[in-house]
């Protein structure tokens, strides 16, 4: 077999192994510049692999990959279908956008001697997230979950504010409880089926589907994964973690971590337990519907009154996750399509916003000083000094609201379609009303940045152009361009999501 053929045959393993091996290599490099260069190369290679996998799946159907040639169900199998490939592209795309951005941002946010360590943790986190998506083994999924979680806690603790440490500790406690619940659930499933392979497990569950241990497993998995994906009211860790983490970490996590958890939930609900158990025999859809609605309203409402811009958009993330779980609770093709497509649409919009806020944090810092928190009193009149950054946030904010032409509109459209299908007109009203709350917090930023006079202090002349460096603006604007591209041309995103949703809902 030629080199190219063997690479192409082993792409699923390379997707995870590449960043995993690069992490210790980066640690050995000890030079921040070399660490950055290697991380950059690896993250772009990951994106290339993800796209190649996508094309393979698109051309010839799902890929089974037996790790070390151990045949399933004994060995650990990697399994890439359309949904997995879609998530792989989202995660590695966000990484490839975040790494070029990170250098300028980190220079002001993290002491120079820990840059290498930062990239080690970033690569581990990336490899963990990719592993969660690609693995077809329930216990392997838990291990990758912990790889990504543990590195995430460290990444958050890199924040300069001392509250980052407390936020990281709280996330560690909540995250570990969630992960342990997931292991309990997987353990109960293993006891009932004697297998850890997810495909095998789904087949063997058919005989014992309504037995009590399986229902307990479903409950443990639901709560555990909900903690990880920050379903209201299990979202307590999220606002602090997002607010105090370094900007690039916030952007990366907001676009990937919670989304991957949603992916795990979809996998367990539709592929393992089967929707007949989850959605028809238990009152789970009702519970999820009401929690989602609470998230959409309570989190959006709280967001409006935040004084810190990062915290505002962190609460907005909780609300947006509400839209995703709302789509799930419908248990219909259109609802699930909205959920899957919103993983991507919200990921890129929120990623862009947090990247741009990173620029603001640098822009409002005094030369040489530690970057301050982006509170609203510091943002007054900012649009004059940082026009591109502010305009970018407004554009991405339009997608959060769901203005036609943006990616966010596509999601809302399918959510509304799904609600109308069920004849629940009041839900259509609720979706629109919660969007109005998003208008309120985006407007609050517009009003402060565009219409308020800049603070009159001598060190910060209002006329001074103080735009973020290009290496930070270009990645963010790429994501904003994508937000509009996928708002207008939905063939790729909706096409995939619709196909996946049809398989998942009708496949059982």
């Amino acid at each position, binding site marked *: 077999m030629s080199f190219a053929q063997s690479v192409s045959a082993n792409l699923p393993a390379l997707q995870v192994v590449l960043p995993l091996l690069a992490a210790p290599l980066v640690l050995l490099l000890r030079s921040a510049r070399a660490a950055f260069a290697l991380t950059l190369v690896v993250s772009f290679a990951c994106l290339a692999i993800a796209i190649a996998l996508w094309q393979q799946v698109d051309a010839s159907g799902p890929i089974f990959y037996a790790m070390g040639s151990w045949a399933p169900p004994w060995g650990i199998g990697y399994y890439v279908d359309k949904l997995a490939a879609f998530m792989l592209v989202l995660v590695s795309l966000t990484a490839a956008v975040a790494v070029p951005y990170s250098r300028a941002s980190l220079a002001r946010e993290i002491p120079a001697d820990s840059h290498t360590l930062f990239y080690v943790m970033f690569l581990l986190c990336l490899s963990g997230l990719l592993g969660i998506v690609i693995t077809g083994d329930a*216990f392997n999924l838990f291990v990758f979950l912990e790889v990504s979680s*543990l590195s995430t806690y460290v990444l958050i*603790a890199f924040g300069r504010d001392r509250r980052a*440490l407390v936020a990281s*500790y709280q996330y560690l406690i909540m995250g*570990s*409880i969630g992960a342990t619940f997931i*292991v309990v659930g997987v*353990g109960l499933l293993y006891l009932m089926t004697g297998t850890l392979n997810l495909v095998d497990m789904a087949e063997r569950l058919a005989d014992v589907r309504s037995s009590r241990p399986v229902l307990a497993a479903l409950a443990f998995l639901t709560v555990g994964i909900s903690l990880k994906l920050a379903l209201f009211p299990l979202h307590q860790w999220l606002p602090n973690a997002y607010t105090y983490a370094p900007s690039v970490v916030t952007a990366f996590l907001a676009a990937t971590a919670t989304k991957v958890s949603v992916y795990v939930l979809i996998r367990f609900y539709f592929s393992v337990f089967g929707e007949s158990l989850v959605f028809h025999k238990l009152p789970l859809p009702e519970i999820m519907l009401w929690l989602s609605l609470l998230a959409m309203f309570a989190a959006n409402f709280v967001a409006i009154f935040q004084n810190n811009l990062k915290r505002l958009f962190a609460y907005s993330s909780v609300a947006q996750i509400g839209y995703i779980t709302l789509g799930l609770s419908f248990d219909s093709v259109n609802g699930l399509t909205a959920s899957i497509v919103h993983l991507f649409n919200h990921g890129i919009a929120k990623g862009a916003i947090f990247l741009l806020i990173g620029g603001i944090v640098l822009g409002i810092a005094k030369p040489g000083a530690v970057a301050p928190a982006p509170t609203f009193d510091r943002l007054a009149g900012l649009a004059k000094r940082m026009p591109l950054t502010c305009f970018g946030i407004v554009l991405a904010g339009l997608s959060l609201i769901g203005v036609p032409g943006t990616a966010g509109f596509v999601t809302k459209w399918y959510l509304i379609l799904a609600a109308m299908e069920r004849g629940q007109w009041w839900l259509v009203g609720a979706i629109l009303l919660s969007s109005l709350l998003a208008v309120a917090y985006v407007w609050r930023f517009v009003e402060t940045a565009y219409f308020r006079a800049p603070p009159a202090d001598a060190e910060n002349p209002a006329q001074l152009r103080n735009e973020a460096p290009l290496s930070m603006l270009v990645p963010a604007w790429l994501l904003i361009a994508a937000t509009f591209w996928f708002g207008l041309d939905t063939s790729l995103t909706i096409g995939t999501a619709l196909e996946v949703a049809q398989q998942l809902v009708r496949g059982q």
Partner: protein
Amino acid sequence: MSALASHFSYAVTIFLLVAGLFIIIARGNLIKKMVGLSIFQTSVFLLYIVPGKLVGGTAPIVAPGFQVYSNPLPHVLILTAIVVGVATLALGLALAVRVHEAYGTIEEDEILERDAAS
């Protein structure tokens, strides 16, 4: 009573699970919380390991005269889970040290007070 006796290991598992969770919630000291988290995670180790053992079963090595073997897979899985638990504990304690350096305390309510004051 006999139900409790026949499900003794599950009773212990559930007790440890709930006790660990209670410590995490009820204690404000960051180290004590980590103790609770460790107990919480340990309960899961039991949940996996106990069903793997068969009464009269031996180590899973093929040898003449032995018919009943214990399932080794849960033990291997839990070996991994123990490593994860140790890593979590180490990271949690490291964070507690850093919190102590930054705040001068590891009591949760005092940390919140100092944040509110600054």
